[in-house]
C-alpha cells in the first residue's frame, strides 16, 4: 500500500522529519516499508514563468512565439502550441536540460525556423492529471522564478508498505491509521479531525433492509446537488501520489475517504437505487451482475449483494454495478458506508479473482464505528468544494453491529518477562496511551481499554498488548540473553545417525552425487511406468497440469534425471534420501522413508568381466552399505514383486540374513522403459536402480562390532572351477563349496563365469578362489585333497563336475 508523506502530514506534524527516516521508524515499529520514492521528482525543476509577450509564429498558424520571464536574465523565447497561451499568464516552464516523465529531456531547438528555449507545460505533461486542453494556467500570485513543486506544496514522498505486513491491522489501511502510529512513535499529537455529520434536512431517509448477518451495519445517505466536476489540485495530487487516477470530484472524494480513514464507501446514482429501498441479501443461485469493470459476474449463494428492491446493484464490499454508477449528469447521490463480514467478502473476492481496494479492506475486519465517520468525512469534504451540496434527510443507519472496544488486563510483570526488558508500569502505560489505548490501574495489573478501531482483529489478548509495548519500545533495545537451563544431551537420534551414515557412504566411497527432488512426479513419468491406475496422493491445485501426483517411492524421482545427465556424463551415479507417500483409505497416507540410487553407464563392450554390470555394481554398493552399517549380511534372491521401473527378469530382493523380510530391491531398468526415458541410440545405457527402506534398516538390529583375532596359521588358496547345468545358481554352488570346506572355508570369491563350446550346450562353468584356513594348524596337501574330493561329490549332486584343466 502506498502512503503519501504529505497526506500523513495532514494528520500529524512532520516538521523536521525526513521521509526516509520516517520510513525507517515505521519499519522498526509498525510495518515493513518496501521503498521510499519521491513523487514526481521533476516538479522540483519546473520553473514558474510569466508570459511577457505572445505573438503568432511567423510560419505556423497554430504555434505561438512567446517571451517568458523565468526570473533569471533575459526572458526566454519559447515556441508553444497551446491554444490558451497568452500574455500575462503564469505558467509552468521546463527550461533546457529539464527532464520530464517518460525520459523526455528538454533541448534547445528550432521549431519551423524559430528558436525555442524550453517548454510551457500542461498538467498532463507534468504527470499531474489527464487535462490536455492546453497549458496549465497557474494562480497569478505565484512568484516568477520559483520552483513549481515547492510553490504549490506538491513536494511529496511515497512510502510503499508491504501489504503482507499489515494483514492483521485493518486500522493501517488508511492514512489516518498510519499517522496515529507515526504520532505514537514520534510522541507528537494526532491532529483533530471533524468527523461528525453536519446537520441534515428532515426529508425521508433511504429505506434499507438487511437480510443477511454478513452485513453488520449499513448507512445510506441522500446527497443532493453534487456535480462531477474536476477535482482540486490538492486532491488530485494526493491521489496521484498513492497511485490512484483522478477522475472527477465525486469518485475522487470517495476514494480519498477510503484511503484516508480506511473505510470503503460507494456512491450510487439515486435514480437507479433507493426507489424501492435498498436490500442487503445473499445472492440466489443463477443470479448475475454486471460489475463496474464491465464483466458479467455469475453469483453464488455465498455472495452478498446490495439490491435496489430485488435487483442486484452492487457486489457488497467488492465492486459496484455498472447500472447504478455515478455518471456526468448525476446530481442526486446515495452514499453507502457499511460493514461487511470479512470472510464473506474474502471468499467472493477470491472466487471471482476480483481484488479491489474495497475488498482488501473489508476482508481485514473493519471497525463498524468507522462508517458514520467516513460518511461525515465525505460530506464535509464535498461541501467544502461544493457548498451548495445538501443532505436532505437524516442518514439511515441499520444493523446489528456491536461496539468492538474491549478491556484487557495486562500484567506489567508479563510484559517484562516476555520482552526481557526493564519496563516499569509507568513506561508501559506511556507507550499504550501514545497508541491511543486507555490505561487504568487494576490492582497490581493494568486495565487497558482497546479502542474499537484496534479491537476488531488485532488486539484481543494480553500478548497482543505485549507486542504493542515491545514494538514502540523497540525490539532493538532488548539485550540478548543466553538460554539457560539444565543441559541434557538430546536423546540419541538413531534415524538421523543412520541417514547420515548412509549419505556419507554413498557420497563417499561409493561415489554418488546426492540429489534432492521435488515430491511431485510428472504424469509423463507415471504414464511411462504404466502407473496411471496406481493410487497416488494427489493435489487438487497442481502448479501445472500433469504435476499433481506425489511420489510413492523416491526411486521414481531419479528416473527423469538419467537422460539429461547421461548426455553429459558416461557414468551417472545419483542417490536421494527422502520420503514417498502411499495413500491409505480413510487415514493419513503412509509415509515411506527411503534411500534410492541409480547407476547409468555406457554399456560395457563384449568381453568385459561378467560382474562389470550396473546391476552387479548396484548390488555391491548395497552390500557394502549394509556391511558399513554393521547389519546382518545381505541375502539376495529373485524379486517376486518387482517395482514398475524394475526389469522383472533382473530384479533382486534384499533381505538382511535369510530370515528377515524384504527391505529393498535392486534391479536393472525395465527394458521397455529405456526408449521412453530417452536412453536409446547414442544414449543407450546400462542402468540399475536400488531402493532401500530406511525404516527397515533402522529396525534391523545392528550386530555388535567385535574384533576377530588375526589368523595364526597361514591360509591356503585353492582355485576350483565347477561345470554345471546352466540353471544352477552361484548361490547353490557357494553353499556347496562352504559345505565341502567343513568349516575351513575362510573366503570365497567368484572370479569367472564361462559358457562355451568346450562345455557343451546348456552348461556353464563357475570358477572360484577358495581360501581355506584352520584356526589351530597349518593345512597340508591332504586337507586340500580331501576338500577337492568333497567338492567333486557336491558337484555331482548338482549335476556337474569339478573341472580339471
Amino acid at each position: 500500500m502506498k502512503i503519501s508523506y504529505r497526506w500523513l502530514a495532514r494528520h500529524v506534524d512532520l516538521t523536521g522529519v525526513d521521509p526516509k527516516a520516517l520510513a525507517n521508524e515505521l519499519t522498526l515499529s509498525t510495518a515493513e516499508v518496501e521503498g521510499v520514492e519521491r513523487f514526481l521528482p521533476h516538479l522540483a525543476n519546473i520553473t514558474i514563468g510569466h508570459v511577457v509577450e505572445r505573438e503568432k509564429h511567423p510560419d505556423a498558424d497554430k504555434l505561438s512565439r512567446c517571451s517568458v520571464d523565468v526570473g533569471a536574465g533575459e526572458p526566454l523565447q519559447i515556441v508553444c502550441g497551446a491554444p490558451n497561451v497568452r500574455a500575462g499568464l503564469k505558467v509552468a516552464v521546463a527550461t533546457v536540460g529539464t527532464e520530464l516523465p517518460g525520459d523526455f529531456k528538454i533541448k534547445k531547438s528550432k521549431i519551423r525556423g524559430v528558436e525555442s528555449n524550453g517548454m510551457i507545460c500542461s498538467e498532463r505533461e507534468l504527470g499531474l492529471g489527464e487535462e490536455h486542453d492546453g497549458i496549465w494556467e497557474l494562480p497569478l500570485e505565484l512568484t516568477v522564478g520559483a520552483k513549481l513543486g515547492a510553490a504549490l506544496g506538491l513536494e511529496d514522498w511515497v512510502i510503499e508498505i508491504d501489504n503482507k505486513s499489515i494483514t492483521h491491522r485493518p486500522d493501517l489501511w488508511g492514512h489516518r491509521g498510519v499517522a496515529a502510529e507515526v504520532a505514537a512513535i514520534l510522541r507528537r499529537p494526532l491532529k483533530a479531525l471533524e468527523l461528525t455529520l453536519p446537520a441534515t434536512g428532515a426529508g425521508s431517509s433511504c429505506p434499507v433492509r438487511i437480510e443477511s448477518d454478513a452485513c453488520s451495519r449499513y448507512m445510506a445517505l441522500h446527497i443532493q446537488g453534487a456535480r462531477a466536476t474536476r477535482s482540486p489540485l490538492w486532491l488530485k495530487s494526493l491521489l496521484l501520489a498513492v497511485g490512484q487516477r483522478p477522475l472527477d470530484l465525486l469518485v475522487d472524494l470517495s476514494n480519498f475517504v477510503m484511503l484516508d480513514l480506511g473505510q470503503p464507501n460507494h456512491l450510487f446514482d439515486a435514480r437507479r437505487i433507493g426507489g424501492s429501498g435498498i436490500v442487503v441479501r445473499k445472492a440466489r443461485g443463477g443470479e448475475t451482475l454486471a460489475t463496474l469493470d464491465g464483466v458479467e459476474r455469475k453469483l453464488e449463494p455465498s455472495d452478498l449483494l446490495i439490491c435496489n428492491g430485488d435487483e442486484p446493484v452492487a457486489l457488497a464490499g467488492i465492486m459496484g454495478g455498472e447500472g447504478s454508477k455515478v455518471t456526468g449528469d448525476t446530481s442526486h447521490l446515495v452514499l453507502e458506508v457499511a460493514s461487511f463480514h470479512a470472510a464473506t467478502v474474502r471468499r467472493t473476492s477470491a472466487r471471482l479473482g476480483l481484488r479491489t481496494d474495497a475488498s482488501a479492506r473489508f476482508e481485514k475486519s473493519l471497525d463498524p464505528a468507522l462508517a458514520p465517520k467516513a460518511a461525515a468525512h465525505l460530506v464535509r469534504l464535498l461541501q467544502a468544494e461544493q457548498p451548495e451540496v445538501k443532505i436532505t434527510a437524516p442518514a439511515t443507519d441499520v444493523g446489528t453491529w456491536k461496539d468492538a472496544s474491549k478491556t484487557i488486563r495486562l500484567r506489567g510483570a508479563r510484559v517484562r518477562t516476555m520482552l526481557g526488558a526493564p519496563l516499569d508500569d509507568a513506561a508501559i502505560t506511556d507507550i499504550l496511551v501514545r497508541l491511543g489505548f486507555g490505561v487504568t490501574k487494576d490492582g497490581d495489573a493494568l486495565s487497558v481499554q482497546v479502542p474499537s478501531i484496534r479491537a476488531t482483529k488485532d488486539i484481543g489478548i494480553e500478548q497482543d498488548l505485549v507486542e504493542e509495548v515491545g514494538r514502540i519500545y523497540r525490539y532493538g533495545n532488548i539485550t540478548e540473553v543466553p538460554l539457560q537451563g539444565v543441559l541434557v544431551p538430546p536423546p540419541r537420534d538413531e534415524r538421523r545417525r543412520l541417514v547420515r551414515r548412509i549419505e556419507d557412504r554413498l557420497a563417499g566411497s561409493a561415489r554418488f552425487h546426492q540429489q534432492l527432488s521435488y515430491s511431485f512426479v510428472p504424469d509423463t513419468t507415471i504414464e511411462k511406468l504404466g502407473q496411471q491406475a496406481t493410487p497416488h496422493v494427489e493435489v487438487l491445485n497442481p502448479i501445472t497440469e500433469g504435476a499433481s501426483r506425489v511420489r510413492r517411492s523416491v526411486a521414481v524421482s531419479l528416473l527423469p534425471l538419467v537422460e539429461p545427465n547421461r548426455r553429459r556424463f558416461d557414468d551417472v551415479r545419483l542417490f536421494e534420501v527422502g520420503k514417498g507417500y502411499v495413500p491409505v483409505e480413510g487415514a493419513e497416507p503412509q509415509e515411506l522413508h527411503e534411500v534410492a540410487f541409480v547407476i547409468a553407464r555406457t554399456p560395457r563392450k563384449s568381453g568385459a568381466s561378467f560382474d562389470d554390470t550396473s546391476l552387479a555394481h548396484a548390488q555391491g554398493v548395497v552390500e557394502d552399505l549394509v556391511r558399513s552399517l554393521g547389519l546382518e549380511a545381505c541375502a539376495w534372491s529373485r524379486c517376486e514383486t518387482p517395482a514398475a521401473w524394475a526389469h522383472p527378469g533382473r530384479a533382486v530382493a534384499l533381505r538382511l540374513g535369510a530370515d528377515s523380510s524384504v527391505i529393498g530391491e535392486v534391479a536393472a531398468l525395465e527394458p521397455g522403459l529405456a526408449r521412453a526415458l530417452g536412453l536409446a541410440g547414442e544414449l543407450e545405457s546400462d542402468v540399475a536402480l536400488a531402493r532401500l527402506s530406511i525404516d527397515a534398516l533402522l529396525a534391523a538390529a545392528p550386530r555388535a562390532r567385535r574384533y576377530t583375532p588375526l589368523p595364526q596359521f597361514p591360509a591356503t588358496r585353492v582355485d576350483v572351477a565347477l561345470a554345471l547345468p546352466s540353471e544352477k545358481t552361484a548361490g547353490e554352488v557357494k553353499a556347496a563349496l562352504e559345505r565341502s570346506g567343513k568349516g575351513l572355508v575362510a573366503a570365497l570369491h567368484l572370479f569367472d563365469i564361462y559358457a562355451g563350446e568346450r562345455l557343451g550346450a546348456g552348461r556353464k562353468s563357475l570358477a572360484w578362489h577358495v581360501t581355506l584356513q584352520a584356526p589351530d594348524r597349518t593345512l597340508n596337501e591332504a586337507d586340500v585333497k580331501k576338500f577337492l574330493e568333497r567338492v567333486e561329490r557336491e558337484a555331482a549332486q548338482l549335476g556337474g563336475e569339478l573341472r580339471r584343466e
Partner: protein
Amino acid sequence: MTYDAQAVRALLDEILAALASAPESDETRALRERLARFTALSGAELTPALALEASAIPLGAMRVFPKEARGQVGAKANAMKQAADAALAQEKEAALALALAEERTGKGFDATLPPPLPSRGSLHPITQVTRELEDLFTSMGWTILDGPEVETEHFNFDALNISPDHPARDTMDTFWVKTAPGAERLVMRTHTSPVQVRAMKRLTPPFRAIVPGKVFRNEALDASHEHTFHQMEGLVVGKDISVGHLIGAMKTLLRGIFGRDIEIRLRPGYFPFVEPGFELDARCPFCKEGCSVCKRSTWIELLPCGMVHPNVLRAGGIDPEQWTGFAFGLGLSRLVMLRFSIDDIRHLLGGDVRFLEQF
C-alpha cells in the same frame, strides 16, 4: 684415502723387479709380456680399473716368482688390488651421488601436468548446511525433529492459530490434497511449523527443538521462487522465555553460520502463530554499503520468528500461563543460496550433476 696412481705404478715396478730376480723362462717372459700392457703406462695412466686388472696377474701366477720374493709380491699385488677396489668403490659412490643429484633436479618434470582425479560423490549443499546447523543446535542441547510432508489441515493451519478464513492462508499458496468427502483435509505442508504442535504433544517442557525439512507453496517458478523448498523450524518452550532469549539464540545461530558476529535487528512481522511476531534482518555479510544481495539496504531479511502464541501452546497441550516460548522459521534454501552464491533457486532440486558435483 685417495687413490695414488704413481704409488700403484711403483708397486707394479717393484713386482716386475721381483720377477727379474727369477730365472728367465718362458713363464717369466709370458708374465712380463702380460704385464707389459700396464708397465707401458705412465703412473697417471694407470686407472683403478687397470690397476685391478694388473694386480690379478701376479696373484694368479705367484709360483713364477722366486720363493723368497713371493711374500713381498703377494703383499704388493694385494696392496694394488685394495687401492684399486677402494678407488672403484669411491667412484661408484660418486657416480651414484651424481645420478641422485641429477634426479633431484627434476629435469623434464612438468608441475602443471593435470593430475588424474579419482571420481567422487557429493553431499547436496542443503544437506551440508543442514548438518552444520543440526550439529550447532544439538551441541547446545536442542533436539532434532521430523514431521510429515503431507500434513493435516489441523496441524498446518488450525493448530497454528490460522483459522479457515484467515487471510494468512492466502499468503501461503497451499497445495491441497485430494481427500475423500468428510475426511480430514490434507495439504502439502506450507511450512515446517506444524511440527511445533506435534512436538508440544510429544515432549514435556522445557524443551528446545529444530525441524529441518521440505515445504511446498503453490508459486510460479522463477530464479527466486520455488514451489518446493527447505526450511528449518526452531522452537523453545520453557519458563520465562523472553524476546531476549530469542535474540540470543538467533545471534548464536548466525555466528554458527557465518563464523563471526553478525548484527541483527528485529522488527514487527505478522504471523498468526506467534505474538509478538518479528522479521529478523541480518546485517548483510557481503557488503558495507549495499549490494545486490541485500538489495542496497545493507539488511537481509533472514527469518520470521516470534513468541509462541498462547493458542498454539494450548493446541499442543501446554499451559501458556506456565510456559512461554519462541519459534523461528529459517529459510534453508535461501541460506544455502547465500552461502554458496547460488543465483537461481531452481538449481537446488534440478538434479543436474554439473551443479551437484560442485559441492
